[in-house]
Structures are given as C-alpha cells and as structure tokens.
C-alpha cells in the first residue's frame, strides 16, 4: 500500500506509541486525584505541556489540551466573539477556504448578529497582509486565517498578518492543523494570539489537540463541567494521547527541516509527473506550499472514480469531488480559488510524508496516468472536449 493521504491523517510514529503505553495501564491515574498514581499522571501532564509550549514558543500556561483541531477552532473563535461582543465589536475577518470547523462556527455567529468578511483567496490560494489590513474595521474583534490550507497546501503569510493584527490591536487566531510539525512556527515571533493544532496530522494519536491562547486572552468554555485546563476545558485529560502528542510533536519538530527538504523534493517530482497528463492543472500556487501537498484537477473526469481505481492499485488518496464529500457541491476550497464546478469534481489530493519513497512517487504517477486514461475513455465529457463540441477549461 502507498499511503498518500497524510493531510487526512497520519500513521502514528513508534515514539508516540511508546510514549502512550505507560499511561494506559501503569500510570493510569486521574491527574485530579490526590493519590500517587494520580499525581504521577499530573506530573506527566505538566511535562507534556511544557514540552509542547517550548515547541510553539509560548508559556505552558498558554497551552490548553482539547479533543483536536475542530474543538480548538471552535473555542478560539467563540472566545474572541464573546470578548468582542462585550464592547460592541462584532466583525470577524476570515477567508473563504477555511476548514469547516472555522466556517461553520462563523456561520453560527452570523446568526447571532456578527458580521463576517471572508477574504478572497485568489487563484493562488493566498491572501496578503495588505488585504487583511484593508478589511480591518473599528469593530473587528477577530482575524482568523489558516496557517496552511488542508486541501491545496498553500501557506499564508502568517507573520505579516500577525504584525498587522498586532499594530491594529485585533486578536489573531490561526488554524495551524496542517502546519504544526511541518512548518517552523513561533507564536511570539509571528504575533499569533491563538492557534489550533491536532496531533494526528504529525504522526500523533487521533482525538487530541491543543488550543494555544496568549496569556490573558479570555477563553469561554466549549465544554463545561470541571476545573481541568485551568477551568477552560472540562473533562478528565486524555493523558496517553497527550503523551503521544508531545512525543510526536518533538520528533516532527526536531526533524522538520530535514523532512521538509526531502518531502518537498518528492512533492515537486510528483507535481511535474502529474502535470505531464494533458489538461491537468495544479490547484494553488506552487510556492509557498506545504512540503507534502499535491492537488490537481483533471479535465473530463470525476474524482471518486479516480480514488476507487487508485485504491484498487493500492494507493490511498483524496478528492474534493461532491461524490466524495457526500454533498452536492464539490470542495469549497476549489470553488474559492475559482475552479468551476465541473473541474472541481475532477480533483485529486495526494499528501505525502517523510515515509514516502521516490519509488512510491513513480508508482503514483504511473497509476494516476492509467486511471485518468481509463476514466476519460468512458467519459462523454472527454469525448465532447476532444471532438470540439465543448471547450477545454484547462489548457
């Protein structure tokens, strides 16, 4: 099997698994308990918090453990909204291609009277700090812009946006779920007030993440019912997962530059190979792009068929077609960068990792070429394109 869906989730690394095991049975205590097994677990929890804080460039007291990226996004946005509402500030700036954890939360706030400006991400899949600056108003209570897009991998100018937000005194949150462990991040240097991350995107366990919130930023609870996480997130801490996350994050950050160099080289080879297929386009600017992200559209075919045929050849990938999303519309990300519906249906995302080999990339290119040819051979749209009855959208 060739696994090229690391943006969906990753396999856990051995270090993460090893770090979890002692906390499943031996040191299984509840950190809120006074007895030894509880207090040992609490020490481990504090240790993990310190290690993660160091990797983000923040204080341990600024790290809140959550169930993952979605919860962290929800809490960050709802907190900023609650803070804004107190002073009559009910305007939020974001982008059109955020993760649904952000977009759906913003939709909810709109129903409560908030006004949301979604910045255009252009065909490149990039916003500029100037566009953010131009959108900021007197009543803006939050700028929330993802660090790197989960579908097309484009990396936003986060430090520049952070500087703008700091100068204008507007809180800045970034959904960094796809970025942490893959890109160098320093929340202080980049003036990030809140950041969401999720462990399973960097070879850690699923169901665990972090909300970093700058000291003094008032958080509102998404989950009520206990004093955990300084009263801001109730529920007994998932110690095994937290230990696994800390181990995976350390490994990813220590090897970050080496991995990025290796993976981006393979990514470029993959992009070049796929673009030799006629009427194929890369989605999102080629740079700056996550080291492992490749996303293309093939004209005249639909994405689910591509995935099924690739899966039959042992290749795991993803698509933004409507058929794979379970909704009628194709990916909102591809629509946001201006791809028409019929083109967005024919998308393929391949997200590779440091475990991917050059031979894997060669195999993916070959299998994709065959797959696209097979599906085009039975597509009436492709026939019409070839016979000139329909105009190519992708040249």
């Amino acid at each position: 099997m060739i696994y090229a869906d690391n943006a969906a989730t990753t396999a856990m690394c051995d270090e993460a698994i090893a770090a979890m095991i002692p906390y499943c049975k031996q040191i299984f205590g509840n950190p809120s308990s006074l007895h030894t097994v509880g207090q040992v677990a609490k020490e481990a929890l504090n240790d993990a918090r310190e290690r993660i804080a160091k990797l983000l460039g923040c204080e341990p007291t600024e790290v809140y453990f959550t169930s993952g990226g979605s919860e962290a996004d929800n809490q960050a946005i709802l907190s900023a909204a609650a803070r804004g509402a107190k002073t009559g500030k009910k305007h939020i700036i974001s982008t059109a291609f955020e993760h649904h954890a952000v977009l759906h939360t913003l939709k909810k706030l709109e129903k409560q009277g908030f006004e949301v400006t979604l910045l255009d991400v252009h065909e490149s899949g990039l916003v500029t700090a100037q566009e953010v600056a131009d959108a900021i108003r007197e009543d803006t209570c939050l700028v929330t812009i993802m660090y790197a897009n989960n579908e097309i991998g484009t990396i936003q100018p986060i430090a520049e946006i952070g500087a703008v937000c700091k100068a204008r005194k507007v809180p800045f949150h970034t959904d960094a779920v796809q970025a942490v462990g893959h890109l160098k991040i320093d929340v202080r240097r980049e003036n990030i007030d809140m950041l969401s991350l999720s462990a399973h995107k960097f070879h850690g366990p699923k169901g665990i993440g972090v909300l970093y919130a700058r000291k003094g930023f008032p958080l509102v609870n998404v989950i009520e019912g206990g004093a955990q996480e300084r009263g801001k997130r109730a529920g007994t801490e998932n110690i095994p997962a937290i230990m696994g996350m800390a181990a995976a994050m350390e490994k990813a950050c220590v090897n970050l530059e080496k991995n990025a160099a290796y993976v981006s080289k393979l990514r470029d080879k993959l992009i070049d190979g796929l673009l030799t297929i006629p009427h194929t386009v890369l989605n999102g600017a080629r740079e700056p792009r996550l080291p492992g992200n490749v996303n293309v559209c093939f004209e005249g075919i639909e994405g689910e068929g591509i995935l099924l045929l690739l899966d039959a050849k042992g290749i795991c990938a993803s698509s933004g077609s409507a058929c794979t999303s379970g909704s009628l519309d194709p990916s909102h990300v591809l629509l946001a960068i201006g791809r028409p519906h019929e083109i967005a249906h024919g998308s393929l995302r391949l997200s590779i990792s440091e475990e991917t080999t050059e031979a894997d990339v060669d195999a993916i290119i070959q299998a994709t070429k065959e797959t696209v040819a097979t599906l085009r051979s039975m597509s009436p749209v492709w026939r019409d394109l070839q016979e000139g009855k329909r105009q190519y959208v992708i040249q």
Partner: protein
Amino acid sequence: MLYSEKVMDHFMHPRNVGTIENADGVGEVGNAKCGDIMKIYLKIEDGIVADVKFETFGCGSAIASSSMATELIKGQPLSEVLKLTNKAVAEALDGLPAHKLHCSVLAEEAIQAAVKDYYDKNHIPYDEDTFRVPSHGEEA
C-alpha cells in the same frame, strides 16, 4: 466498504462501454456541473434492443449503474425497457448507499431519453406521459 461487490465489479469492469455509430437512439442526462453525465446509445432491431453502449462522467456508482442498466436492457423489447426502474438497477447492484441512489435514477432517465429519441427519429407515436421529465437538469 462504501459499495457492494457488485457495484465494484461493474465499476472496475464496466460492461458495454463505448458508443454505437449511427445509433437508433441516444439519450444524455445530467450535467457536468453536478458531477454526472450519462449517455446511452441504442441499436434497435424489430423493437428489441439489439445493442447498447454507454459513456459516463461520474462517480463509481454512476459508472456501475450505467453498466448494470445496459446489461438489464440488452436483448429486451422496448416495452420491457421502458419498465426499467431505478430501483431495479439499484437492486441488481445489491444496493447503493442512500446518497448514491440518484445515480440509478440517472441510468433510468438516460435509457428513457434514448428510447424517446428513437421514437422521435422514427416518428413512432407514443404517450407523452411515458417519459417523465428528467429531474437531473437535462439541458433545456
């Protein structure tokens, strides 16, 4: 798994893919914007489907539904062909996930459109009610 073995078989090894030159009836339904287009070609001899081919732009279940539908109507008299329902196509595939049932509807509609085209071309009178209005936004 998302799909039955039968759906996967018909997707991986679709029957009757292609076109028929000088087909007696051609039906195309769906649109690319929605992500699926189905095109059926019929060769009719003595009121019987002597040959049938399909081309489909769409997901796995759309391709499998087209393939199965062509198998079900090949060799059948048109009176029987017109009785083919989307339910029969889905059942022959051992079922489709709920959000994929529209693929079997598309197959039924494409076949009806092809038969209607055959009737129209040959000035064969028919009851308009025989052909339902395509629900999938056949280009007006």
